[in-house]
């Protein structure tokens, strides 16, 4: 099936993503920030869908929105908001923030201008229907080793978290 109104949805989703991204760093209330972050992630998932990557989109929703953000909210709710608002905030560092933003923006602009020559515009080789299978095959053939390394890393992280959280094991 041919996609409908691609441009419209692209600008809608990216606009929403940027807007909610701004909300994430401007809201005082952490719960509101987290909700805006969820919106950003959902918009990204939509963009992945438009890139013919439904698997990545699905995983984005399951892992980031359904899993990680829930745990985020979980922690935020347990933390005493009133007391945390009185404590010193980290987002007051204007100068380094602006410097980082300018550097990143410069990078983007450079890539936009010179990128066409650097990266070959890829053909869309996989139609939508086979994307998931392709991802699976890639993960278990070409990228087997990095994939397993990543899972090992996650295991280490889990054990580390348990060790840090438990007062005595």
């Amino acid at each position, binding site marked *: 099936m041919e996609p409908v109104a691609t441009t419209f949805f692209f600008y809608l989703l990216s606009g929403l993503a940027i807007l909610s991204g701004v909300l994430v760093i401007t809201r005082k209330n952490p719960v509101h920030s987290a909700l805006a972050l969820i919106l950003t992630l959902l918009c990204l998932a939509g963009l992945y869908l438009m890139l013919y990557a439904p698997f990545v989109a699905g995983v984005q929703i399951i892992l980031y929105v359904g899993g990680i953000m829930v745990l985020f909210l979980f922690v935020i709710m*347990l*933390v*005493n908001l009133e*007391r*945390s608002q009185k*404590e010193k905030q980290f987002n007051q560092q204007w100068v380094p923030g602006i410097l980082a933003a300018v550097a990143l923006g410069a990078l983007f602009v450079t890539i936009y201008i010179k990128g066409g020559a650097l990266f070959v515009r890829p053909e869309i080789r996989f139609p939508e229907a086979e994307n998931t299978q392709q991802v699976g095959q890639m993960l278990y053939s070409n990228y087997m080793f990095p994939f397993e390394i990543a899972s090992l890393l996650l295991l280490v992280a889990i054990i580390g978290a348990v060790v840090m959280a438990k007062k005595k094991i």
Partner: protein
Amino acid sequence: MTDSTSSVSHLDLDESKKTFLDANELILNMGPQHPATHGVLRVILRLDGEKVLGLECVIGYLHRGVEKIAEHRTYTMFNPYVDRMDYVAAVSNGLGYCEAVEKLLNIEAPPRANYIRVILTELNRVASHQLWLGTHALDIGAMTPLFYTFRDREEILKIFEKYCGARLTTHAFRIGGCQYETYEGFEKDVKKFISFVAPKIDEYEELLTTNRIWVERTKNVGTISAKDCIAYGVTGPVLRASGVKWDIRKAQPYAAYSKFDFEVPTGQNGDTYDRYLVRMAEMRQSLRIIQQAVDGIPEGPIMAKVSKVMKPPVGEIYHSIEAPKGELGYFIVSDGSTQPYRVRVRPPSFVNLQALDLMCRGQLVADVIAVIGTLDIVLGEVDR
């Protein structure tokens, strides 16, 4: 009542010591309007996540000053008031009071009256345990037993209604005996009830005793040792489930209990599951007592000779009976007039409730509900 901070003082709520990361301690106010507190009990819980670090009961919402009222009524006039304390076991309350005053007057109820008293009291014990079972199971999340027990309790209330006209606050007994002779077909009704309810008790047990979730929810929950039970003055099925074979009906028999053959069921672990088993066994023992009492009920008068105006001699008396919830005691002081000088009620629920803190420490919030249920408290009696 309105000042909640003052009543949680012993829970150690020093706010200044905490940073915003110390959020794992939470004060949860349960009640007085809460579905699982069996009336108007208010429990203030100090939680670490879901774990109970300590709790405090706030009671008194149903306080009606029963003991004060007693001082301004004659001995006879006060009799109906006692039914309003433990309203699910009103007959037991009446029995305790009547026997206490009889002791003070140094008279004894005739044997037939004692038999009727035993039958009604034991029926009431079954009704009380049924109500306990239904609400306790409901608290733990099993909805269905509630309706089964209420269906069967209804039969007991029907017998009460036929006997004395009231279903709940029966005022069945008078000082010196019973007001009413048994109605036509009383024995038949009671026997029919016994054969009706015995398989029903099996039915309750079928629903719960081997139900895995029930066992997991009640085993090792709210455990209290025999030593703690005695130290905290906990009586009744709770004490027996901890392994102390003590029942006033056996230890210091009153009414006609010495004439009957029955067992005192005990548990070993003192957990919620054992208390459940003990109460189920108690219902069966009660049926046994009722059967014997109906079979052996003697003929004769039902009222001892009591003068219309009761003036007990100056003195004090303490009399206690085994109510469904534990030791129900009456301490009556007479100054020789028609009105008691002081009536002190020793309510089993009140004293048992005191052990709630001990039983809940280190358990989870859900266990608090189970423990409140298993203590079988009636707030009317706690607050009087």
